[in-house]
């Protein structure tokens, strides 16, 4: 269980919600409404007031690197720290399965990352995120750069991760994908302050 308690993202009322294993919460909202900031705060990549618990353990009670080995943020524009894709993956037997599930089984993992297409990089980022089996996935528009068939493949891949019992929070604009994956939806533009902001401060 991933529990968010009074998490403060600038401009939004404090957020509290829970996502259980095998569930997918879809975050919606216009650009700049705080979707990415929310995911980054849950992964503890930006400072944010409030609490995030995974299986009852707050993020601050655990070394930051351990937290992010469990709570995995996948950026909409994944960045790469080494020259080739292979250098980003641990040597795991499941790597081939992950690649195949996303239609990347024929990919040459030793070619420079810079020569790959945006879509290939986005799918590789999903492989990278899953390679060490994190229980929580925070996906920021994971199929935004993919052509229709590959997007469908990636959606099925995410569906499979949900069925396998992972906790998924997904930011998406794709209505079909949301319909297919969402267990619950949260629209950031619809949020209302529970009290007047100044009475919260009091």
């Amino acid at each position, binding site marked *: 269980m991933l529990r968010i308690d009074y998490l403060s993202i600038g401009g939004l009322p404090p957020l509290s919600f829970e996502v259980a294993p095998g569930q997918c919460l879809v975050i919606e909202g216009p650009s700049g409404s705080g979707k990415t900031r929310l995911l980054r705060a849950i*992964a*503890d*990549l*930006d*400072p944010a007031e409030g609490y995030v618990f995974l299986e009852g353990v707050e*993020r*601050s009670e655990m070394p*930051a*690197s*351990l937290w*992010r*080995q469990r709570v*995995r*943020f*996948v*950026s909409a*524009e*994944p*960045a*790469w*720290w080494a020259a080739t894709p292979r250098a*980003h993956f641990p040597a795991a037997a499941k790597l081939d399965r992950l690649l195949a599930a996303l239609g990347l089984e024929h990919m040459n993992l030793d070619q420079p990352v810079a020569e790959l297409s945006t879509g290939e990089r986005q799918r590789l980022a999903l492989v*990278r*995120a899953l390679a*060490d089996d*994190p229980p929580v996935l925070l996906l920021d528009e994971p199929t935004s750069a993919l052509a229709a068939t590959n997007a469908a493949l990636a959606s099925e891949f995410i569906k499979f991760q949900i069925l396998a019992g992972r906790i998924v929070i997904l930011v998406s604009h794709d209505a079909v994908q949301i319909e297919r994956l969402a267990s619950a939806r949260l629209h950031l533009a619809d949020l209302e302050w529970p009290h007047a902001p100044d009475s919260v401060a009091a």
Partner: protein
Amino acid sequence: MSSLPLANTDLLWAALLIALNGAISLTFGLRLELSLALITLRMVVQVAALGVVLRFVFLQSSPLWTAAVALLMLLIAGYELAERQERRFRGWWAYGLGNTTLLFASGLATLYAVTVVIAPNPWYAPRYLLPILGMVLGSTLTSVSLVLQTLAEGIERERGAIEARIAQGGTRFEAFAPLMRRAMRTAMTPLLNIMSVAGMVTLPGMMTGQILAGADPVEAARYQIVLMFILAGAAGLGAFATAVGGVLMISDRRHRVRLDRLAPLASSWRPF
């Protein structure tokens, strides 16, 4: 050993060459003549004052006076270091980090030099300690400032890659390792260049000085070699400490990248 004394008229003859630079600037519209004049004046005052102060301190040969001058040198070097940075840390750390590592590395190398390597009697004899500290500071200043600059530029360009590695569960030192490595390499390069051409293309400054002052060239060479080792040690130590300290400051305890700790870009060129 003795050197030919220089009369004031000799200084004036040499100043003619600076005047020539001014004339070039005027002729070709380089618009450097004002800066040139001010900087020349500044240099003359600085160096002359240094001579007078050093003569006084050498005559005293008291640890207190030596310490006072050493401290002043450290402060000026620290100020110069902070001024050299284009991207600085916010607040107190703008001066804190560079100064701490500069002090640490040059202090350690200088103390090692005067207590173990050259070991004059007493070890704090200003005639040895102050010139060594000066040269060590110069070399460490360059290396520390190159590390700070490489880190600050690199963090903005490579933020995505660094954060990707952190998001993947890496520690900040794992994520920053490539940038730290590059910063330290950049910092060591000037010294490697100087060492590789020393004695071939350039006659090293200290050795030149000693030879002009009448010392035996072989003895001067021994001094120069020892000094190169000390400078290299100080520069490397300073680079390492600054790289580690820089990463600790540019990220927080939760291993988050904190670009908000960098002050906005300030570009200023000042003659003073």
